[in-house]
């Protein structure tokens, strides 16, 4: 090994490959059958269950947990997937601590919720491992729908539309499907190529034609799609990144956290270069993921700097603790003033409560939020309206809801249901 955490500058292989591999292993390992049984036994089968209300896709949590408890995990998987076709990915990446598990009555009673996410993974993994796709298509309707963007929103919409008997064509500008499932989420949350495996499984429904390398606005136009299809769903996510607007942003070594993460997700981790002193600016999930993964790759010092106070940070307390326990230092209430350096970055100056301080840095990740890049239809605030004539939008690009995988799945599904109702003449 030539490099170490102390190697100056931006370098790959700061740790030996085995250590890197271990660092990126399944973050919350899968339950075995015994663990699942014990965890499922804790569920009270609540009436009008708060967990179910908190789930953006309204999975019938008490029912699926009872199905696990009674030894029918495949039935549990069907209960989950009927509401959320990406129940497998959501089980891995949902911030359950702010969703279902936060309101679980056993969290309230004992500070220890039923482990809903892990139980969900137990059920869905089991069914997927059998290669079973539990849904079939309704009779063909003769209607054709275009879906733009193959992230969780687009794929969820495509699946539901195909299931209803429509012919679906998905246009995706990248080479691979999945959106941030493939290019965004932390590597240790979705190991062993799960994103791609789940999509292969999802497409088994049939009736979905996929066209990658096609960009809306470049290769096809919305007007063209509207002319060729009976309806269009836009699930184009947030392709733009908010700028810091601080001097020195152009220095080498300063980059968008999402680009670092996208590169990392596609690369052999042993070849991913990272700084010795890494500074991450931002307070969301992206910031946490960039910081933690830098640390796991062997950066010596990783500091996350967030403008606001701890409670306002959009990454949950659980995630903040996850970061600090990985060795990330978090500074709250400090705003970046400028990047320091000649050609390449050497440090960042911040101001906190009127005082300024400088952090040494050979790599700086900007993670202060993503934004819509171009608006093919009318906007509602900073995002797209949910519907404009025969065009629907859902997921991160659309107004309403949190920017989460599970919300994208829910919005894709709901738009598909609405499109179906309109195409079949049930509503306008």
């Amino acid at each position, binding site marked *: 090994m030539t490099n170490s955490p102390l190697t100056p500058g931006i370098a790959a292989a700061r740790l030996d490959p085995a250590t890197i591999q271990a660092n990126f292993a399944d973050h919350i390992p899968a339950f075995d059958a*015994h663990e699942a049984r014990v965890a499922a036994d804790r569920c009270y*089968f609540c*009436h009008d269950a708060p967990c179910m209300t908190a789930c953006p896709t309204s999975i019938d949590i008490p*029912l699926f947990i009872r199905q696990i408890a*009674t*030894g*029918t995990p495949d*039935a549990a998987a069907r209960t989950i997937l009927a509401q959320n076709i990406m129940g497998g990915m959501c089980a891995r990446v949902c911030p359950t601590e702010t969703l279902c598990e936060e309101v679980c009555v056993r969290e309230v009673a004992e500070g220890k919720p039923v482990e809903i996410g892990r139980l969900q993974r137990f059920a869905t993994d089991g069914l997927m491992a059998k290669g079973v796709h539990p849904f079939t298509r309704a009779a063909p309707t003769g209607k054709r729908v275009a879906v733009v963007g193959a992230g969780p929103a687009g794929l969820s919409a495509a699946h539901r539309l195909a299931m209803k008997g429509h012919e679906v064509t998905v246009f995706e500008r990248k080479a691979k499907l999945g959106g941030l499932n493939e290019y965004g989420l932390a590597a240790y949350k979705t190991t062993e190529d799960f994103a791609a495996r789940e999509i292969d499984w999802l497409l088994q429904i049939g009736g979905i034609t996929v066209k990658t390398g096609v960009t809306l606005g470049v290769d096809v136009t919305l007007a063209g799609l509207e002319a060729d299809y009976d309806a269009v769903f836009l699930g184009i996510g947030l392709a733009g990144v908010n700028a810091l607007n601080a001097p020195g942003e152009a220095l080498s070594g300063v980059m968008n956290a999402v680009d670092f993460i996208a590169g990392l997700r596609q690369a052999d981790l042993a070849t991913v270069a990272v700084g010795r002193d890494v500074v991450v600016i931002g307070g969301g999930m992206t910031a946490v993921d960039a910081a933690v993964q830098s640390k796991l790759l062997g950066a010596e010092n990783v500091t996350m700097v967030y403008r606001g106070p701890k409670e306002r940070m959009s990454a949950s307390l659980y995630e903040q603790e996850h970061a600090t326990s990985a060795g990330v230092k978090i500074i709250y209430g400090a705003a970046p003033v400028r990047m320091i350096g000649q050609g390449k970055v050497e440090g960042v100056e911040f101001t906190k409560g009127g005082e300024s301080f400088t952090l040494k840095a050979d790599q700086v990740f900007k993670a202060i939020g993503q934004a819509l890049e171009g608006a093919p239809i009318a906007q509602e605030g900073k995002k797209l309206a949910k519907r404009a004539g025969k065009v629907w939008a859902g997921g991160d690009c659309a107004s309403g809801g949190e920017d989460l995988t599970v919300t994208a799945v829910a919005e894709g599904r709901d738009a598909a249901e609405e499109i179906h109702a309109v195409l079949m003449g049930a509503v306008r």
Partner: protein
Amino acid sequence: MANLSSDFIGIKSPNPFWLASAPPTDKAYNVERAYEAGWGGVVWKTLGSEGPPVVNVSGPRYGAIWGADRRLLGLNNIELITDRPLQVNLDEIKMVKRKWRDRALVISLMVPCDEESWKDILHRIEDTEADGVELNFGCPHGMAERGMGSAVGQVPEYIEMVTRWVKKHSRMPCIVKLTPNISDIRKPAEAAHRGGADAVSLINTINSITSVDLDLFAPQPTIDGKGTHGGYCGPAVKPIALNMVAEIARNPLTRGLPISGIGGVTTWRDAAEFLALGAGNVQVCTAAMTYGFKVVQEMISGLSEYLDDKGIALSDLVGRATPNVTDWQFLNLNYVTKAQINQDDCIKCGRCYAACEDTSHQAIAMSPDRTFTVKDEECVACNLCVNVCPVDNCITMVEMPKGATDPRTGRQVGDYANWTTHPNNPSVAAE
């Protein structure tokens, strides 16, 4: 999804899960919500004769026992039959049946033990278009003191007599509901069969006192310092009910008599077990009272998945285990198994050791590093360790192949042979 539709003595329902006659079926509001949740049928809460309705206590009517995590295992009640006016019930039954044609609706009845009373009530319910009647010869408290319920169910001659009256005065399919508070369940079933019953249902609740208030020195539930025995039901009674169902199913005198299985059905698996032992459908009370009507959805998905996995139809399941219920004397005494501990699953709690070492056959060894292994030369295959181990399937009973030598007895595992031919059997030696 397997087809779960059920035909029980000509009464059709979309699935074999019915709600038993009890509070969940006491009124239209409940029954309609139960149907909405997916229940295939209901037996309406027992109706009594015309006249002022019975009166329930206004203090607590239930007692319970719990397992770990306060999971309700057994429920005890001192509730009587419906306390709502007869006509109100009849009007609601008629309205509900009209609205829910595809669901089963059976009326439970309990009136005094004379022909006129039965003739009268049967006449009154005719107009409801209900699918059948269930004769409540089961409730063990309150009504029994008035010569009804289990007071009838404990006397086979009365059962036969009343069943005959019912068949004489009504064209409706007739189910006789049996009390378990009797020493031989076959006798009342035979009587019902003789009387012309189309089916029997069992079990009603078991006489019980769930607990005693140690400050008031009174049984619970306690009504103003006093308590009385109630009827016990819920998961705890399932083994008793299963045995009674099997006894009737394999009794030559009642073989083929349809059975509606009741008692502790809580999951799809419980239901499947009743069906396998010969029940044509199941009825549920406590599980619905504990978890709400929605609990049926797990029963439906689970039974359907099970039938799909097995590749059999619902009707193939009914009675499939009955031929395998036998008498002790016919069990194979040359069948030898040994407990085996899967060391990967073992969490080293030592419960198997305590059980076997202290109370059984000293057949489990414990090493200084807490590795637990079975001593085949001591293991009599009693299954106690399996039952006390907290990890499902960690200890299994492994069958020894024929011809192998049992290290405990030094004998070879031989062919089937039972007690009736065993040399130690005095009646064999006498021949």
